[in-house]
């Protein structure tokens, strides 16, 4: 994934400090938020909550429906480009050599995200790759304030592994903030992709969807 971040305006350290005071207050009002610096990986049940917010819980849906619902919720436009190999054979080779299967670009200024995937990917891998990149958007991985990396020396190893980062202004679907460690962000995007695939296939046969209608 790549982010085209706009140049920061020079609001100065005063506003940053103000934002620092505001954040805990904002978190107080958020039900079940995990924005206190650490959290665990997304569970299937938590993903079902995200689906409920998108209006997809208990329904069978295609990745296109998930993409459209996510775009509506985040109020951005999401374009998925499946590039045929014959158009840009070099793209496929470059991606394959680099070990990547797709590319996500995000522009805050244009309020849009674009996902590029080679058309030669096997259908299941193509679907999961697109869902993986959509997972980054849902998690808010592209809204990370990278200048506020936590000081890992001050934390326990286990805690640092699951440390999260604060976000810039923007909408995300996930309740928790993105992980500080990139490998964890990738792992969670994989989890989101697999949860989405199964939830879309099973609809109201999903045990997690059924839990939302049987709370007692």
């Amino acid at each position, binding site marked *: 994934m790549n982010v085209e971040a706009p140049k920061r305006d020079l609001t100065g350290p005063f506003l940053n400090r103000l934002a620092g005071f505001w954040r805990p207050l904002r978190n107080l009002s958020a039900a079940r938020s995990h924005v206190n610096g650490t959290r665990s990986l997304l569970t*299937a049940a938590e993903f079902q909550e995200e689906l409920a917010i998108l209006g997809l819980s*208990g329904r069978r849906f295609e990745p296109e429906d998930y993409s459209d619902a996510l775009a509506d919720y985040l109020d951005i436009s999401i374009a998925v480009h499946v590039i045929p190999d014959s158009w840009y054979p070099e793209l496929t080779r470059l991606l394959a050599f680099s070990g990547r299967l797709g590319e996500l670009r995000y522009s805050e200024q244009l309020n849009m995200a674009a996902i590029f995937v080679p058309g030669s990917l096997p259908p299941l*891998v193509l679907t*999961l790759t697109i869902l993986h990149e959509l997972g980054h958007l849902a998690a808010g991985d592209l809204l990370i304030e990278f200048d506020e990396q936590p000081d890992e020396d001050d934390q326990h190893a286990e805690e640092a592994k699951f440390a999260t980062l604060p976000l810039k202004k923007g909408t995300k679907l996930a309740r928790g903030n993105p992980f500080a460690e990139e490998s964890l962000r990738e792992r969670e995007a994989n989890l989101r992709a697999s949860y989405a695939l199964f939830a879309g*296939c*099973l609809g109201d046969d*999903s045990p997690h969807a059924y839990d939302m*209608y049987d709370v007692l």
Partner: protein
Amino acid sequence: MSAAQHQALVLGSVSFVAFVFFLCFLLPSKRTKFSVFAACNLLFVALVFGAVALVDLSGGRAEIMVAVMMELPVVLIVAWVCLALAGGLPDLPGNLPAEPVARRPWLRAVLGSAPLILLLSVGLATAVGLVWPSPALRVYAPAPPQFVVLKALIMAPEWFYSGLAAVVFVMAGRASGLKRRFYFKNLAFSVGMGCIALIAVESTVFAGLRVWLSGGNRGAILEILNTVEACLAITCILAFAAGLSLRYTPAVATTLLHRLQTGWLRAQEQFESLEWQAVSTVAADRLTHASDAVVEACRIKGLSESETQRALATIRLVAVMRDPSSETQHITPDAARELYELQQEILCDDVLASKISWAAGWRSRAHEPQTVKSAPLHDALKAALDLVDNDGESEGVRTPPLWYYIVAVSAADAKMIDPAPVSMQLRDGAEHRAAVEAYDDARRVLRMLDDQRPRMEDRPG
């Protein structure tokens, strides 16, 4: 024994019998957090009524304390239900919220506040009762205006939260495409919570009448209201019992789903993506000729698109498995066999196998979605393993399809596999001869096209 003590003894006995019944029959079959809580609540009610029956606590502040304690089980039930609908305490990951609540963060916050507000109101009502004692346990006795304040402090939030919970249950039950059993289950709980809301209203009105109503028909009106309350209470209990007894077992268990996510899906994705990388990089050149010949041979024999795709997937797999480079080291016969076995496990479950599918392309409705069975990889894995692990036995492939023969001939010709065991395996039958002929024709066609291409490229303009 006073009338109040006698009434408490009856109610306490009923609660205790209900507790024993719950413990023996309902809890063993469905042990949820709510059912355990409900059992504890019944025991608590039985103990409170038992205490009232044994000790004459009428008069003064003790009466207030007992009255509040008797309200507490219902207050706790309402708080618990609201919490369950909200998905647990805020900032503590718990159960899933109800579907309509998950979509509305404000509703979750309101429902999540129920325990705090309800217990605060009970506390406040207790304080009011202790400062201005009233005959709370003597049901038909005239009461001072402070008694209405005490009742309203408990009943107003109870009415609000139980009413809200009833509405949320209705919203959950009315979700489109929901199974009928969930509809009735949520409807039953909605009726139960609605009854509690009505009891709260009735109880406040009853307290008001005790303060302000006088005259001959006072007793009759209060008795009617008492009967209404009893009917509502019975309806509430029956509705909850009906809701709890309606059970649904999902077609796919959580443990199975988890196993599929961590086992099959991860294995298939890794396998296919690594294969794609290998084909796109190191094995690409080696494969081009063989795969072109396979596709052309399939076309010559008039094979279907799906059969051609299977043949293509098989020749790719064989090429990658036989490639000595380090980039393809993860695509081994062992990995292929493991994935094939995981797929077979899914295919044993007809319901699951038919449900798990994925689109053949992005926003493409032209092709049917692929399933574990219909995807080319499943048959390709078996075919490739038969060709690569050519130990002479090809269990399961009694009479291989024509595309398999074409791949075998092509792979042998491209020196990907040893031709001798393959010939033995295929026993030089008619299908094999047809595949050899088609393959030879395909090679001839491809050579002609190759010859024509430079001439066309040399042509000026």
